[in-house]
């Protein structure tokens, strides 16, 4: 089962890569895109495929991997199947700061929006951690409650900004709250890479610890897991993943919640097996979602968050119904 499932994942990922480069835009037909990939395309088709679609594809893959990994890590850490980057307020903090920056900065400084999102995500991460601290350190329950509170606060901030934003800016500010890869650049993909790679290494390093934490904190501590340190590192890794994703693509829902569940149904609960496959599945799901978002009403674009939900939820329900 595992070998076939791995092969299936590779096929889906390759389909997402091919589709992302060959389809889904008015700048180059599939034939023209193929010519570009074989080094024979004209200047405009080359700009469309290598300048627009490739960075967009890379960013979608990286953001999808980041969100799915963050969801898997938080669900393991908090022992809560509903935990995802949004529930803990991290994405909300990034989105609130990005929306504020977009609405308030002069147009020439719009390039600073990702930095603002990163700062917002870091601030909300710190706030959740600070609120969750009790006499015995931050417990999963306190972290979830703190996250819900921060999430509610950031949602209110976003709504206030949208209500007060000058009308020409409203569309851009809304785009942040609905997610988009339309503004992807090669630089954005490079910037995001360390925010995915470093947390992935942290999560793989603590994979065994997270597996033991699933048995309960006391049992894990009895087996040598330094619970407080693991919790802090995993939480920060998840926060970095969410912050990076929101900074460069806005808020994209469901990937962080659904992908880990899908992967658990196929590959089981071992974090060391689960995390790399979750990252790849999240990358494929998000890239396919973006392909659908720019293809269904082409050349108009749908919010990618809408498409990931439409793709992910029925698939998730079907797998859930078939599982024992």
């Amino acid at each position, binding site marked *: 089962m595992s070998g076939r499932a791995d092969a299936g994942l590779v096929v889906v990922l390759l389909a997402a890569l091919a589709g992302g480069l060959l389809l889904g835009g008015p*700048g180059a037909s599939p034939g023209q895109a193929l010519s570009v990939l074989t080094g024979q395309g004209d200047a*405009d088709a080359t*700009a469309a495929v290598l300048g*627009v679609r490739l960075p967009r594809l890379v960013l979608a893959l990286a953001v999808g991997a980041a969100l799915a990994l963050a969801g898997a890590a938080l669900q393991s850490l908090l022992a809560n199947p509903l935990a995802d980057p949004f529930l803990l307020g991290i994405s909300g903090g990034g989105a609130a700061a990005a929306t504020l920056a977009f609405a308030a900065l002069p*147009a020439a400084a719009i390039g600073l929006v990702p930095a603002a999102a990163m700062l917002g995500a870091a601030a909300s991460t710190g706030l959740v951690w600070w609120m969750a601290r009790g006499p015995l350190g931050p417990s999963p329950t306190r972290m979830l409650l703190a996250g819900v509170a921060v999430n509610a606060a950031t949602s209110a901030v976003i709504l206030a900004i949208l209500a007060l934003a000058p009308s020409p800016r409203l569309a851009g500010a809304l785009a942040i709250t609905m997610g988009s890869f339309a503004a992807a650049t090669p630089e954005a993909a490079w910037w995001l890479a360390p925010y995915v790679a470093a947390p992935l290494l942290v999560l793989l390093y603590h994979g065994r610890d997270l597996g033991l934490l699933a048995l309960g904190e006391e049992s894990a501590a009895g087996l040598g897991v330094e619970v407080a340190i693991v919790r802090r590192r995993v939480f920060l890794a998840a926060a970095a993943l969410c912050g990076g994703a929101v900074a460069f693509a806005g808020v994209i829902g469901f990937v962080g919640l659904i992908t880990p569940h899908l992967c658990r149904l196929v590959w089981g609960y071992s974090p060391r097996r689960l995390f790399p496959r979750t990252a790849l599945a999240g990358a494929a799901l998000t890239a396919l979602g973006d392909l659908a978002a720019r293809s269904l009403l082409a*050349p*108009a674009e749908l919010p990618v968050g809408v498409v990931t939900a439409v793709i992910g939820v029925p698939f998730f329900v079907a797998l859930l119904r078939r599982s024992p």
Partner: protein
Amino acid sequence: MLVLALSWAVAHSETPPLLDQVGHRVETGTARRIVALAPDVAELAFALGLGPAVVAVGPAVDYPEHAASLPHLGALDVESVLVWRPDLVLATTAGSDPRLVERLRALGLRTLTVDVTSCARLVEACTLVAAATAAGDAGAELAAGLRGRCAEASRRGAKLPRRGALYVVWWDPLIVAAPGTFHDDLLRHANLSNLAPANAGRYPRVSPELLLSSAVEVVVSPDEPDARALFARVVATAAGTRLARGAARVIWLPADPASRPGPRLPEAYVALVAERERAP
């Protein structure tokens, strides 16, 4: 029998009710206290000579000078409107919350909503407001002037070569005006074929790749400080390479008339045609 028949005929020959451009019935009669919720309807009221009756305007109203000096509503809500005790509220589908208009109507206020999606609809809106306020001749005169300017733009535009075009209302994310908007009508009067998708709403967000399509020969955009800065960012990316090397011509229109479907809109029609005549 004959008397009965004549009575029936008279009873059924009443003037049909006046409907605004979203289909709501509008009572006619002189307006003494007008609140104009949006810039285009405020301009329309002043152009019809109703300026002395306008008591308050929406937050974004800044033209003409007298309108700009009137009290501005702090917020577009029922209370802010009611405090001015208006006997007519002018609204627009381009910038007024329809729920606010519905609420005002439910409270018994006379409202009139215009929905300007073309020059013809602008002329109709002008006639409608004039009829509703018994402004009579001023309406006919203004309507004739607007009709004449649009016809002039259309006549001159017809002599220009047909080109594929986009009207970009926002550069990042890329948002364009679709068929069915007054921006689309603006393009058509200049003999430009709108390449925006027709199946995704009035102002759809589109793929930046659309700027790389060889069908796009002209790009029209309102000249605003934000638009220029964001355009510069787009041109620096791969999606802007055709614009950067001049393969598609970019025409900047004065934002004020081009972004407001009010009585100065025909100036934008003529300005676009004039720009095209300069370099067809």
